[in-house]
């Protein structure tokens, strides 16, 4: 009963490339749980994807979903 969570760029330095989290019902809940475990994540800017689709706002989650935290890059 888990959700897969992936982290990219500098966010991976805080959390690791990937972790499994217990199932929660919404994306906002997942963020809250992660902020509790990884307080540094809270001040970071990122976009979120659910099952390889970038989303805005809150989204319902189910077991086996894959969420990704995507930071903006500006380097060229």
């Amino acid at each position, binding site marked *: 009963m888990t959700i897969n969570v*992936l982290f*990219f*760029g*500098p966010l991976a330095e805080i959390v690791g490339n990937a972790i499994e989290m217990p199932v929660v019902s919404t994306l906002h809940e997942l963020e809250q749980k992660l902020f509790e475990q990884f307080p540094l994540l809270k*001040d*970071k*800017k990122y*976009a979120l*994807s659910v099952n*390889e*689709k*970038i*989303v*805005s706002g809150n989204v319902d989650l189910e077991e086996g979903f894959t969420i*990704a935290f*995507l*930071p*903006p*890059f*500006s*380097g*060229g």
Partner: protein
Amino acid sequence: MSQRELHTRYQRQIMLKGFGIAAQQKLLAARVLVVGAGGLGCPVLQYLCAAGVGTIGVIDDDVVSLSNLHRQVLFGTDDIGKPKVEVAVEQLRRLNPEVTINIYTQRLTVDNTLELLGKYDLVVDGSDNFATRYLVNDACVLLDKPLVYGAVSTYEGQLAVFNWNKNSEQERAVNYRDVFPQPPSAQEVPNCNEAGVLGVLPGIIGTMMATEVIKIVSEIGEVLAGKLLIYNSLNHNSYRLSIEQNSEANDLIPKSTAAFKRMIYEETCISNIEIDAAAFNEWVRNDNALIIDVRDSDEMPIVSGFKHINIPYGEILERGEELDSENIILFCLSGKRSFSAAQKLKQLRKGVNVYSLKGGIESRGS
């Protein structure tokens, strides 16, 4: 150049099945602007020039420095201190004298961007800062130009084609703001110099950007439109995400030339703009701030219980001068639009305290 020489120079791509003379002619007729002659710009310029893109523009106001050389492969040690575009154009003319190369030793601003981008069919963003990235994105949306986007940080790169939607006339194509509606603050993201970058990484991402340009112009393959590709050089993993329209992006992109010219893209210090619900309630109690709802006037829920006026997000700058208070507090539903509006208003009304309710009216509960 004779027809025969032309055939010989591009022979190995003309002979490709699905490419041929027709695709080569499209490349020769194309006009592409490359923003930034840095780690991404160098390989983009080299491959587009080699492939025979007819007219290439390159804009960059920087000079070559020693710490550029591990990744900016158009430049040599004896070029240190010289303007990047001037060194680049020399190298590119040696590579392919048939290509017309226009150089611009300047920085893009709200005043020169629309005119410059208007001269090209397609724009490549290889810049190194968020201010330029948002400026170029918004200009491309306004001018309806395809934008090939790439960015790098440490060992990872991002690639996408924005504002390109060949198959649907009705639906707006996605752009950078659909992924990241607003630029991050200085605290939220380290800049490139702090973050560091593996030298070959912009080479890889830049070459992928050039590939997208060639595909778009010559109409081959499947363009990476509506997708964001994230590439990791440490394990060669790539992750591909689909992008959908984000309504916040619609609100934030300027809708006219005049609105574009009023935008403020330079990175500014935006700390201390956001206040939490407790501080907001304190301002309400003290009754010495002008509180403004920046949502459209018909947006729900209707907010009551404290004194405020309504000025929609799109009008806040035009009416900025008429706001008669030393303290101005903006709010919206989630705190995003009001944050963006507060940043701009603060620029316009220096000396006035401008705040945004963090988390919006949702954060106050009911």
